């Protein structure tokens, strides 16, 4: 029995239709799967950002006291600041100056703060309540007051309105981050301190103000409310300078050599495989290496941004080499052939023709590599950069922390109520830096991009 032409066509059509429907179904299924994956990813990122932002943004504002400080000459009983006399040796002047500074340090600056708070509260505070009173102000403020006086000794006798950070517990209380219904025994602040906070808030002496401390201060343990990111920021900056100064030239040069000049043989194959392997080595391994070689063998200082930079350079190099090679490889061979054809040497070909075209890719790769190094924490813990440092480093050889490490340290602080928000604020700062670096990479790529 044979089918007519009509029937066979019919049969063919149904087969095609069936298979078409099946293929469409498959395609739709795959699309939906892909869309679901993207949505799931986006949701997770949104949740992450929402939680960091809601926790961190309030920390950019901090409970601050605006009180009138009277630089009482009875308390600040000091000789005038030494001025260098004609004929005095620098050493002798230095001696006199140190002596004066020591005297300044011995002044009871805290009592000036106590007195100003008493005036603001409008009541005499008994000595036994002094502890409750002092809990209101960040303990580091007395040094800020001292430094202000040293900078301007003519303040003596004046009454000036000064902005002082409230204590960390006060900030927590004012922001409502602690359950106000908890019994006294479970509160950080005494009932007296809490009553005073209400008074000061009513008088608008205590209010939320943008926290410059977060940006200009270093980490602090004795005056928790004053803890800031300045030291960590400078540490990260020095490290990034070291990373950029070392990894970009070394990485780009070795990539150019490997891609454009090196003969293709077993040795270069081996090198290539190992560079790819290095890119996959966990960063903590570089930390161990750094600790034993840079600190143990070369004798570089512990906790120094220089060592951190060197370790991160090792980590960033493979990334930059791979990115640079990829971007060199994407330049059409016709460019090279054309240059060679009109008589350019190989070096001229590379530097005059290939490299400018590959620049956007190289820049993007380098910036992303550096951004990755900026966020790296693990290797830094092993070279002592997780130490508590209360100085802003002036050189890459001075002890310092780094931004991601500071986040790690704050996350571990005992005073959870205060530092949870502070940690998120630091994360926002770090994320902001990363995003601006990435934006710079995109901008550079767009700017130098050439189309054929």
């Amino acid at each position, binding site marked *: 029995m044979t089918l007519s032409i009509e029937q066979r066509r019919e049969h063919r059509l149904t087969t095609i239709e069936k298979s078409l429907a099946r293929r469409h179904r498959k395609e739709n299924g795959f699309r939906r799967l892909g869309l679901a994956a993207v949505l799931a990813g986006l949701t997770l990122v949104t949740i992450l950002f929402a939680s960091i932002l809601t926790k961190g943004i309030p920390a950019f504002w901090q409970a601050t006291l605006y009180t009138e400080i009277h630089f009482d000459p009875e308390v600040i009983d000091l000789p005038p600041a030494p001025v260098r006399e004609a004929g005095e040796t620098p050493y002798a002047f230095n001696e006199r100056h140190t002596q004066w500074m020591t005297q300044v340090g011995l002044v009871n600056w805290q009592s000036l703060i106590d007195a100003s708070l008493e005036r603001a509260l409008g009541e005499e505070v008994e000595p036994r309540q002094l502890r409750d009173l002092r809990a209101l102000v960040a303990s580091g403020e007395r040094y800020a007051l001292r430094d202000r006086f040293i900078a301007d000794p003519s303040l003596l006798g004046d009454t000036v309105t000064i902005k002082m950070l409230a204590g960390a517990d006060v900030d927590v209380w004012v922001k409502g981050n602690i359950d106000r219904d908890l019994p006294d025994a*479970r509160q950080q602040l005494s009932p007296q301190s809490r009553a005073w906070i209400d008074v000061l808030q009513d008088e608008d002496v205590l209010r939320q103000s943008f926290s410059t401390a977060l940006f200009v201060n270093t980490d602090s343990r004795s005056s928790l409310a004053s803890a800031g990111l300045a030291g960590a920021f400078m540490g990260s900056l020095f490290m990034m300078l070291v990373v950029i100064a070392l990894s970009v030239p070394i990485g780009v040069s070795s990539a150019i050599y490997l891609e454009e000049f090196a003969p293709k043989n077993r040795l270069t194959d081996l090198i290539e495989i190992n560079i790819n392997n290095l890119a996959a080595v966990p960063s903590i391994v570089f930390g161990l290496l750094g600790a034993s070689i840079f600190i143990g063998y070369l004798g570089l200082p512990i906790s120094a941004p220089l060592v951190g930079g060197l370790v991160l350079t090792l980590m960033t190099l493979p990334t930059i080499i791979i990115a640079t090679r990829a971007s060199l490889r994407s330049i059409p061979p016709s460019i090279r052939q054309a240059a060679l054809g009109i008589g350019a040497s190989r070096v001229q070909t590379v530097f005059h023709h290939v490299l400018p075209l590959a620049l956007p890719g190289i820049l993007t790769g380098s910036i992303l590599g550096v951004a990755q190094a900026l966020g790296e924490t693990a290797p830094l813990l092993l070279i002592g950069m997780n130490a508590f440092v209360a100085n802003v480093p002036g050189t890459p050889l001075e002890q310092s922390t780094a931004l991601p490490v500071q986040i790690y340290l704050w996350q571990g602080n005992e005073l959870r109520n205060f530092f949870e928000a502070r940690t998120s604020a630091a994360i926002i700062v770090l994320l902001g830096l990363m995003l601006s670096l990435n934006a710079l990479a995109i901008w550079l790529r767009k700017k130098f991009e050439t189309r054929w």
Partner: protein
Amino acid sequence: MNVTKKTLSVAVVAALATGASAAAMARDTIQIAGSSTVLPFASIVAEEFGNTYSQFNTPVVGSGGSSGGLRQFCQGVGENTIDIANASRPIRSSEVESCGENGVNEIIEVKFGYDGIVFASRLDQNEFALTPEFVFKAAAAQVPQDGQLVDNPYTNWSQIDDSLPDQEITLVIPASNHGTREVFEERVIHPGCESVGEIEGDACNNLRGDGRIVEIAGDYTETLARLDAQDNAVGVFGLSFYDQNRDRLQVATMDGVTPSLETIGSGEYPVSRPLYFYVKGEHLDVIPGLAEYTEYFLNDMISGFGSPLEDAGLIPMDEGERAEVLENFESRTVVSAE
């Protein structure tokens, strides 16, 4: 050729920079590392020290646990080794020996106060009244029953004693890199072991491995996070940490005594330990401010009653003890390996 030359020159410059910096290095900042229990105290002192003495830099304080700090301390003498190791337990003779092998012979021990170890649970959970015996029974690998040692059968606190709440046993303790672990064993597990009887010596230290004991290698924040995740857990904390987190934690009594500055200071609360730091004698005349820092730390205004360290949860030493420690330091009395 040009490019290889460039690569070479970059490498040479980098090497030169590295070498030059190593030679130019002269550290004028005190470097400290060690116990995470001591870290908050040492950091406060470091900061106040830097603020008080304008001629010295603020010391740098790292963590790493008592053992980690002492290991770094014993790496040798020189500017790239630390000057002070913080410890929440006394130095071991094995550590003194390893120090000696690396040329660190002048180890000066400085005790600066006490810290209590408390058992705490979440505020929304049951209250605990513990004794070392209860804790031992909850934590041990094997307990005696009917004259025989059997694998620990307790899964619920109320099985150990009727006075304890009906709650699954989960105990979060510091891992062995912490000095606190040693105190936990010596002051809680060993007395508990003795009062149960039938087990002796090192066998007391065998803790159960069925997941009811959780060891934390990080700091107390990690222990707290564990309690947040596992609401029936009981955690081991330092008194100062508990003090800062009273709005989340409730503390268990030990032998009926509630831990506080007073009960630990008087010795009524049994689980407390002295805190130390070790100064490298070889560095005393090299690193500026090292001796001043130590004396500043021992100053009554800093670590005495009513001092910033007491506010931070340290239990101060009494006058006699303080004078003794200070005298020890001034005469540069060195720790020796027994």
